């Protein structure tokens, strides 16, 4: 059986890739995809813990995270469409209307 630490390490790598994506990209759609990547990395460690602790609670939490992610994507993409309609850009450096 593959040890738990391998799954946790893979989850940490995927989370870090997602964090790099949020930090270095300025296309708001790709930043949003990186956030999805981070959510999935956390889901992987939930399922791994659930398997190695003989408990199904982790899978229940993954189910809840997926529902929250679906709601988040729907609202987030609606906000992006709203911003694009007003500013005609998806570059986060140009979306600075609320900057003091």
């Amino acid at each position, binding site marked *: 059986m593959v040890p738990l630490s391998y799954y946790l390490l893979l989850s940490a790598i995927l989370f870090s890739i997602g964090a790099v994506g949020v930090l270095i990209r300025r296309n708001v759609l790709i930043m949003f995809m990186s956030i999805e990547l981070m959510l999935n990395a956390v889901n992987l460690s939930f399922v791994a813990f659930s398997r190695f*602790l003989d408990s199904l609670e982790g899978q229940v939490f993954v189910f809840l995270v997926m*529902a*929250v992610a679906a709601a988040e994507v729907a*609202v987030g993409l609606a906000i992006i*469409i709203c911003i694009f309609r007003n500013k005609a850009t998806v570059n986060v450096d140009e979306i600075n209307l609320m900057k003091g």
Partner: protein
Amino acid sequence: MELALFVIFGAVAVASAIMVIVSRNAVVSALFLILTFFCLAGLYVLLNAQFIAALQIIVYAGAIMVLFVFVVMLLRTGKEARRGYRLIFQKSMGIIFVVLFLLLLGSITLTVAVTGMRGPYTAEAVRHIGNTQAFASVLFTDYLYPFEIISVLLLAGIIGAVVLAKRKR
């Protein structure tokens, strides 16, 4: 065999995740993100979570990514500029700090042994009654209230998306 599958799925997941964040084209990013989700579904099957694997493909690779691709197609985004960040050193400092963060996480995951209270659902027990039935018996007894509240959250999400994306008259 299991280790080989883990290595294949993990390597493809990491490679396609890197492609998501380096690709210049948002549609290419979305397609590589779908590949990452499929690899994660394979890992969930390796972890005896078949129901979650099916949900991963149906909800993430299906519903959420269709929404993403649809919005990417809807907005003509054009090419992203490579230079001229508003914040200086944003790219280099971001990568440096995330690598440090990864070293921290990696040292924790490789050294700390997980000890906790074990639940009743061993691999044999789950195989005997079926993963979906075992999952449902936990979800609809101990976690019934979160399940009901999540339905309210999804309703709020639907209404919020419609109100935000509606064109003002």
